[in-house]
């Protein structure tokens, strides 16, 4: 995956709670293979009116936000279905970072495996960013993953938490399968030990 180190990008606000992954990409688009541009499906039904026309009031439809690289979302962003295509849709549309007061657990994990950085900031800070964005529509935000800081348009800098392993994978663009396979001996040893104690666990049938 593409490494994530620093990002300086325009930010768009999406101040709606509980944006589930069905909103991020509706189920009917999920048969697309990864090589398909998933950006065209992003927020498909939220950003369009009943006749399929793009709604002027949806943030990412505004011309100066169409190139936004950072989304400032609300509580429980990415809840619901485990579909990783939600992350593909964001990434393919050019979003590399989502900032929110909280995330669905599976979405959070999926994001970090695809070079998309999820950042948790407290709701007051997030609200302050929305307010800034209301006046200055395309304000920029700077993210430094190594330093674990976000520099907001109002001049404040905030630290965020991230698990060190996820951070390393993001910084280096690592695929964790190779790292895991370095532990093949331990994996095998555990399987054999378990099979001796609980034979039913290691077999179906």
């Amino acid at each position, binding site marked *: 995956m593409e490494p994530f180190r620093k990002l300086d990008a325009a930010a768009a606000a999406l101040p709606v709670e509980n944006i589930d992954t069905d909103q991020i990409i509706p189920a009917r688009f*999920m048969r697309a*293979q990864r090589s398909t541009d998933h950006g065209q499906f992003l927020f498909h039904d939220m950003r369009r009116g009943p006749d399929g026309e793009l709604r002027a009031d949806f943030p990412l439809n505004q011309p100066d936000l169409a190139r936004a690289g950072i989304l400032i979302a609300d509580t429980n962003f990415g809840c619901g279905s485990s579909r990783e295509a939600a*992350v593909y849709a964001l990434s393919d549309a050019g979003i590399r970072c989502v900032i929110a007061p909280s995330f*669905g657990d599976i979405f959070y994990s999926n994001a970090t495996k695809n070079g998309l950085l999820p950042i948790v900031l407290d709701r007051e800070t997030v609200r302050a960013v929305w307010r800034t964005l209301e006046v200055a529509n395309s304000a920029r935000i700077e993210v430094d993953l190594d330093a674990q800081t976000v520099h907001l348009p109002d001049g404040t800098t905030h630290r965020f938490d991230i698990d060190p392993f996820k951070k390393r994978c993001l910084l280096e663009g690592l695929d964790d399968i190779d790292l895991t396979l370095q532990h093949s001996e331990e994996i095998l040893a555990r399987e054999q030990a378990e099979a001796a104690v609980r034979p039913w666990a290691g077999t179906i049938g």
Partner: protein
Amino acid sequence: MHEPSTLFEKIWSRHAILDREDGTTLLSIDRHLCHEGSFHAFDKLKAQGRKVRRPDLTVAIADHYVSTDAPEIGNQDPSRREVIERLTANAAEMDVRLYGVGAPEQGIVHVVGPEQGITLPGLLLVCGDSHTATHGALGCLAFGIGASEVAHVLATQTLWQKKPKTLRVTIDGPLGFGVSAKDLILHLISVIGANGATGHMIEYAGSTIRDMSVEGRMTVCNMSIEAGGRAGLIAPDEKTFAYLKDRRYAPKGGDWERAVADWRSLATDPGARFDRDVSIQAGDIAPSLTWGTSPEEAMAITGRIPDPAREADPSRRVALETTLAYMGLTPGTALTDVPVDRVFIGSCTNARIEDLRAAAAVAKGRAAKVTAIVVPGSTPIKLQAEAEGLDRIFIEAGFEWRATGCSMCVGMNGDLTPAGKRCASTSNRNFKGRQGPGSRTHLMSPAMAAAAAVTGRLADVRDLLGKS
């Protein structure tokens, strides 16, 4: 003397291969269930030239894309058939057991696992689907993962995980007349919120859970994710063992005795610590349903649509207005005055035999006033229901009796609620557009959904039970 530990910790530590200093654990996976959506993971594996490490512990099941009114593979819509056939091809190439379209075991992945005895207490099971928590009803630690993690499990039969926090939900007392497991979980989510259990593993405990059937427990655990929970677990007991005994892949003979002895040791020890505790009185729960577009927007059927004017927080007021506009609901309306257009009885939440019996008991001798479909959770359940005559009851009442699949739980297999139409549904998500673009979903129990079908509106099932 050991520190007292929880059911969750016992299963977790059994599967821990190694702990990294950053607090992440490499877990060994006992069972991996795949479905059509797993193609991204298979593609990734193939692109990297890897093989499935333990095909013998991997099971592929067709459910999400399968048509329920023309189930034969030749009758499937071509674009969906293509996705189903990707699963068939991947299973064949990787030597993975497949329950494809037409297989006698086929059904919804979370129904098939327990039914075939693939799911067992004390195991660690994963699936690329957020409702994997269903299997926790048997005391099996089970959670949903994304496509990259599915690829990781296929390649290594392990997963790196940070230990979640633990939340114990204790429910005590008998459930009231007409109140089911579905009402219990909807009530719980409305109390703790759609992110009330985020980052947590939930253990359900208390007399209500002990007295509940294994099938009801599956309904409860299934919706753990709707409260944000990573997994839901219930300690295995005599009911669990009776449910599993003689299932196709349950241990047999001497292994069965040894397994049951092992499973008895899994319960949470007295004095074990949870990060959080929530208590619910079963007597406070009425037949419930959702009225909005988040599972936390649930209330008793005796309630009224909330009024945005009474919401003090301006952003929440706008959110509520948006929700009501989407749902086509007027503030202050009694729920029982809301007409419905469709009824869906199915999904991994509520399509097991008990669910079908509960719905049939309400449908019996009555007539559906709107289009209502009944979709059994698996082919064995369909056959059992037919042997019990439930299909006749539904058909005579004007319900459609379908083949198994995810159906209208998720708008990707042809079963849809049209835009602007209102569906009384036994599934698990009332998200905008979940049942098709513009669809309006009210989640409820099978008996409540059947009551909606025969009255043509949201209805209090208690008014129909015992009368016909």
